[in-house]
């Protein structure tokens, strides 16, 4: 066994072949990495929600808001994940740019078009998520300095 490994190592040293160690990263890889990023972000938010639930922290000031902030961040990840897929599958001719950038229109013919449109409104989830996170932190701070919370 040791002899075979030694001979193999000798062969690799004296008769090397192309290993293709550096691979070119093709076009869709960026999107896949980004989508995977959305998934791990979603899992992280689910974990925080589960911890708040498991440790029965919702009754304590600030934690309910933190819980809902994480729910909204999670929902935002789902929406944008779907939005990226919808964008990939959208027929470019569905968007009419003839009237200028401001006045673009979307011709919705199927569910994919509708999902693309809804995903473009993702800030309607993201901003409330940030707001709830801020309110949670403010409640924690008030409790820390002894100011009675709502």
């Amino acid at each position, binding site marked *: 066994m040791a002899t075979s490994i030694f001979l193999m190592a000798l062969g690799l040293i004296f008769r090397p072949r192309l290993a293709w160690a550096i691979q070119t990263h093709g076009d869709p890889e960026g999107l896949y*990495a980004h989508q995977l990023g959305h998934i791990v972000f979603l899992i992280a938010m689910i974990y925080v929600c589960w911890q708040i639930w498991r440790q029965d922290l919702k009754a304590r000031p600030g934690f309910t808001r933190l819980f809902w902030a994480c729910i909204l961040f999670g929902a935002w990840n789902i929406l944008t994940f779907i939005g990226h897929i919808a964008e990939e599958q959208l027929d470019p001719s569905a968007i009419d740019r003839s009237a200028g950038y*401001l006045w673009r229109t979307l011709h*919705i013919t199927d569910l994919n078009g509708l999902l693309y449109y809804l995903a*473009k*409104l993702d*800030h309607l989830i993201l901003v409330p998520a940030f707001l709830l996170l801020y309110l949670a932190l403010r409640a924690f*701070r008030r409790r*820390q300095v002894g100011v009675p919370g709502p």
Partner: protein
Amino acid sequence: MIWSLLPSLLVDMVGSALAIILAALCLAKVRQLLRQEPENALWIFLFWLSTALAVFAISRSVGHIAQHLLIMAGYRHIWQALSPFSGAINTFTFILIASVTVFFHHFQRIYHRMSANHAELETVSRDILNLNRDLETMVMERTMAEMALGVADGIRNPICVIGGFSRLLLRRLSPDDPTREWLHTIAAETKRMEEMVEKFESLAQKREYFFGQEDLNHVVQATVETLGPEIAAKKIVLVTDLWPEPIIGKINSHLLRVALSHLVRNAIEATPPGGTITLITRREGELSRLAVQDTGRGMPPDVVEQIFTPFYTTKIGGSGLGLVFVRQIVEEHRGTIAVQSQVGKGTTINIDLPQRFSPRQNSDFRPFS
């Protein structure tokens, strides 16, 4: 169905601006929390989460706003060059958020374990303090008793002699002898001193407060009741070989139980699953013997020599005081403790206790010697 994309553009622009503002506010707030309590695990987690979200909000929102403005201004090509950077930073922040959360998960587990250890340490410290207080009281009590016994032993005979002779002289002297009054005084003062000796002796009786007539077998049974589940949990066989009759002696059952529990716990730690711990009680003449045997890993002679040295320990996190207390408890009972151990075979600890108290032979107090 044709829908205008203008609402989505407006929501995107306003939402992006709001996201930046709110992310900055979150970061400022969590910094305040952390500044006041820099070691709070939750604030540390929220700080890093808010930092990652702030980077994400800035990267994404600036990217979105720049996208709209550049395209409207006719610089689509610039946006096309910038777009991959914005997307890459967004992806990086997602991973960062997940990493912070995973780190927090492990951090929290360690934190909880440390908290539990801290609570346990506090309990142990409190127990040691209580034990120490009991021992100090016992030492004080013993010193008083030994003083009393020493004074009584040393004074009683001379007092008796003086008292006896003064009374004899009184009987022999004629009633009109002028020294008679002096002898009366001597006899009265001697009487007072005899009473003082009696008081000293009564101090010695106070030992009853700490030591009562109790059965050594009961001490062993009570300890087994407490530690039985720990022994069973480690799948160790427990054998109790008790003397068939009660072994009544002057003991402090609470302190002896503390000492025996410590020895049994040491045996549990040293004995592997499947091993045996044996508790033995015997009556040997005037002595009561209590033995703890285990079939554990044993100790080399150099360790055995030092196990009663204060602060000497072979355990990680051990105080090195447990066996010191055990020895002191045994000595307070005027007993002796001996250790026999063989590496790989096990350890036997023998405690011999006298069934009746007598002044300690090596007492430091020598008032009349």
